[in-house]
């Protein structure tokens, strides 16, 4: 099992959500986050002087998937979230040791 953390643009979230639903992953954990990558924020201007927005709002989606689904899942997110401009985000794939469904006590892939 792997946990996939995808950091995507706010405005791309709806597309990503729909694409994941279409490949059979309706469940997800979503967090509104702020951050920056190499692009280092945005320059804005107020009353004639520039200032830097160091941190930009993003959406972080976390889903735990079966090993064999990882590549399809990642491809789907990449396709749905990409604009080709800086700030499209990143996807992290992390190994997961165990999953427990609290209601039934089931463990492993059936609990995903």
């Amino acid at each position: 099992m792997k946990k996939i953390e995808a950091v995507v643009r706010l405005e791309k979230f709806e597309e990503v959500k729909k694409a994941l639903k279409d490949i059979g992953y309706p469940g997800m954990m979503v967090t509104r986050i702020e951050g920056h990558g190499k692009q280092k924020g945005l320059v804005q201007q107020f009353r004639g002087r520039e200032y830097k927005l160091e941190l930009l709002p993003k959406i972080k989606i976390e889903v735990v998937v079966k090993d064999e689904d990882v590549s399809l899942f990642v491809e789907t997110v990449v396709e749905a979230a990409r604009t080709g401009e800086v700030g499209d985000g990143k996807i992290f794939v992390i190994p997961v040791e165990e999953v427990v469904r609290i209601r039934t006590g089931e463990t492993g892939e059936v609990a995903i």
Partner: protein
Amino acid sequence: MKSLRGEKLLRGGLRMGKKALLLAILIALLFLGVSGAVFAQDPSGAKTIKENPGAAVDYVWVLVSAFLVFFMQAGFAMVEAGFCRAKNATNLMMKNLMDFAMGSLAYMAVGFAFMFGKDVAGFIGSTGWFLRGSDYDVGRYLLYMFQVVFAATAATIVSGAVAERLKFKAYLIYSLVISALIYPIYGHWVWGGGWLSNLPFGLGHLDFAGSGVVHLVGGMVGLAGAIVLGPRFGKYGKDGKPRAIPGHSITLAALGVFILWFGWFGFNPGSTLSAHELRISVIAVNTNLAAAAGALAALATIYLKTKKYDIGMTINGALAGLVAITAPCAWVEAWAAVVIGLIAGVIVVVGALALENLGVDDPVGAVSVHGFNGIWGLLSLGLFADGTYGNYTTEAPHVIGLFYGGGFGQLIAQAIGALVCVIWAFGLGFILFKAMDKLIGIRVPPEEELSGLDVKEHGTAAYPNFPYVEEIGA
């Protein structure tokens, strides 16, 4: 430590007690002075309307204009709140609310009498305390209503320049002093028959609706306050360069400028104090054109510098045009109003940035909008007056500026008035803020400034359910 602080507070309290006593004695003396005096003139208005049936339309005109000018308080509140951070919005609303409350009372008690009472030596008015005695009269009350909203405009200008760091109680005291003394005494010199209006140049110093009396006074007291307070934390980088501290709502600031622009249609045309002077249409057009030209020129100026269509400076530009046209609005024609507005729009941008570079932190640009353009407005009258309007009346002699062959006379009168206004308002403002700083301290403690004045001073955040992030420029 604790006892020292307690002692200091106690001494402060005693001092305040003495002050209150002095004030009470003063007020009692004023009442005595009035009580023997004079019969009421026309408190019901019946006599006035009988003698002059046309008075009705004048009264309606002046009162509606006064109510429009009152609404400018909302405009100032929105511009200031929008240009400042969310953590100080409650404080700004309180200051804008209470300067009108304090101003209304102080101007009723003594301000109106100093400004429009019986003249003493061209320096100060001396009758009409508390709107009593012969001032209990529909005509005098009408004048009070129109003038008190102007006094409060001068007062509220300052809240922007001292925003985000001035203690609330210092602001209350300041509101009292500007409405009771600084504004009305200078106002007497120009509008109350005082010495500036009788200068032996041109027709004496002229200021139709208050580029000087209202805006330059407010701008200079604001400048004094901003200098005594010093800049906000984070305004200047370690290299000493000014940084942007973006306000929390461009939407509110823009709403504010629309309200102010709207209110100015009462401010300037209403200053005829009569609907029978049809010059009001010329004044309204000039007011509108100068605002439009100011906005455009400020936008162009800041675009040339930053290659951005900067709304903050454009808002300041519209206000700069309005401030500048306020003095000459009755004496110039449309093209001149456009030129006056265009120059105002350039002055406001260059002035605001230069002031920041000199180390003066004026969060909303009040000094540049009201101070620098107040001066420009006064001077422009001496240049562009076209000889079609007289000494606050349609009757001759008419006012003729330099560009219309009137020579330098009027321009000199305008320059003297502007200089006197700068010295008077900046001087008294500086003394006032310095004195308050010595007695009670005028700047909030650093931790309060960083966390915002709203919760520490007032116990209420303006937007309790919305967390916010603060950005400060590089």
